[in-house]
C-alpha cells in the first residue's frame, strides 16, 4: 500500500525509518530464547526500539537453557528442587539485571539485523528477505495440465 505524504513524513522521523524500503532491510528475525543470556545488547543497539528488556522473567527459559551455561546451571539446580512446572513469568526486582526476558515487538521491527550482528550469544538469527518469494507462486501446475 502506498504511503500518504503524512505517513512518509512520520516514517522519516522515526529512527531508521527512512531505511524501511531499502535493500538489506526486511530480514526475518528469529529469536532463540533458550540461548539468550539476557545481556540486553540487542535492546541497546536496536534503532527502532523493537527489542526491549522487560520487567518479567520466564522461568521456563532457565529450564531450556543449554547445559554448561550460567542459566543452564541455574536451571539444573531448579530442576532438582521443583515440585511442579513453573507457573509462568515472574516479576523481576529492579536490581536483578541479567535474568530478564527481552520483549520483542515485530510491529516496530524493520528487520535490519543489527541485533543479530551484535548478539554475543548468537541467540538471534536474521534471515535475509527472499527475492524469489515475492513474485506470484509459480504456476507450474497450470502449465503442466
Amino acid at each position, binding site marked *: 500500500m502506498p504511503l500518504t505524504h503524512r505517513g512518509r513524513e512520520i516514517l522519516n522521523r522515526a529512527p531508521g525509518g527512512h531505511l524501511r524500503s531499502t535493500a538489506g532491510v526486511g530480514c526475518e528475525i528469529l529469536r532463540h530464547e533458550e540461548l539468550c543470556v539476557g545481556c540486553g545488547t540487542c535492546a541497546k543497539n536496536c534503532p527502532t526500539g523493537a527489542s526491549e528488556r522487560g520487567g518479567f*522473567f520466564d*522461568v521456563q527459559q*532457565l529450564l531450556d537453557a543449554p*547445559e554448561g551455561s*550460567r542459566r543452564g*546451571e*541455574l536451571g*539444573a*539446580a*531448579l*530442576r*532438582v*528442587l*521443583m*515440585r*511442579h*512446572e*513453573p*507457573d*509462568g513469568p*515472574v*516479576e*523481576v*526486582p*529492579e*536490581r*536483578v539485571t541479567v*535474568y530478564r526476558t527481552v520483549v520483542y515487538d515485530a510491529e516496530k521491527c524493520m528487520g535490519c539485523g543489527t541485533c543479530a550482528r551484535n548478539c554475543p550469544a548468537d541467540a538471534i538469527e536474521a534471515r535475509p528477505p527472499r527475492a524469489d518469494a515475492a513474485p506470484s507462486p509459480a504456476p507450474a501446475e497450470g502449465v503442466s495440465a
Partner: protein
Amino acid sequence: MAAATPDGGDRSIVAFCCRECAYAAADASANARTPLPPTVRLVLVPCTGRVSPLHLLKALAEGADGVMVAGCLLGQCHYREGNFNAVDRVAFVQRLLKSVGVEPERCRMFTMSAGEPPKFVAAVREMDRVIGGLPPLPRSSYGDRTGQREATAAAASRTARPLEPTRGAA
C-alpha cells in the same frame, strides 16, 4: 552435610555472611560462647553483593534445606550498595522458588550491624525454627536429568569396556 538437632530433625542451613557485619557479629557471638544451632554452616563472603541467585539455588539443590544471607544494615554497606543488590536477588530467588512450588521461606535475607551478635543469633535461630517446620525438600523427584546422565554414563562405560580385555591380552 545435615546435622542432627536436639529435636531429632536432620537439616542444614547455609548462611552467607558478609565479612564486615554479619561475620563479625558471628565472631563476637562465638567469643561470648553463645550456642548457635548446630544446623547452620557459615560461608564468608566479602560483601552480600557477591551472592548470586546461582549460589543460593545451588546450595539448596545440593543438600541445604534453607539458605540465609546476612549482611549489613540497609544503607550501611561498606561497599555502598552491595546489600541492596542482595535484597533484590533474594527476592528474585524467592519468586523463582514460589513459581515451581517450593516454599519461599527457604531463602531469606537478614541485616545486622557488627555490634549486634544477639541479632545474628536470633536470626539463625529464627531460620532454624522456620525450616524445621517445613516439609522436606523433594530433591530430584521431578523432571530431573539424572536418569539421562546415568544412561550416558552407562553408554560411555559400555564403549570403554572393550578396551580393557585387549589391553590385558596384549
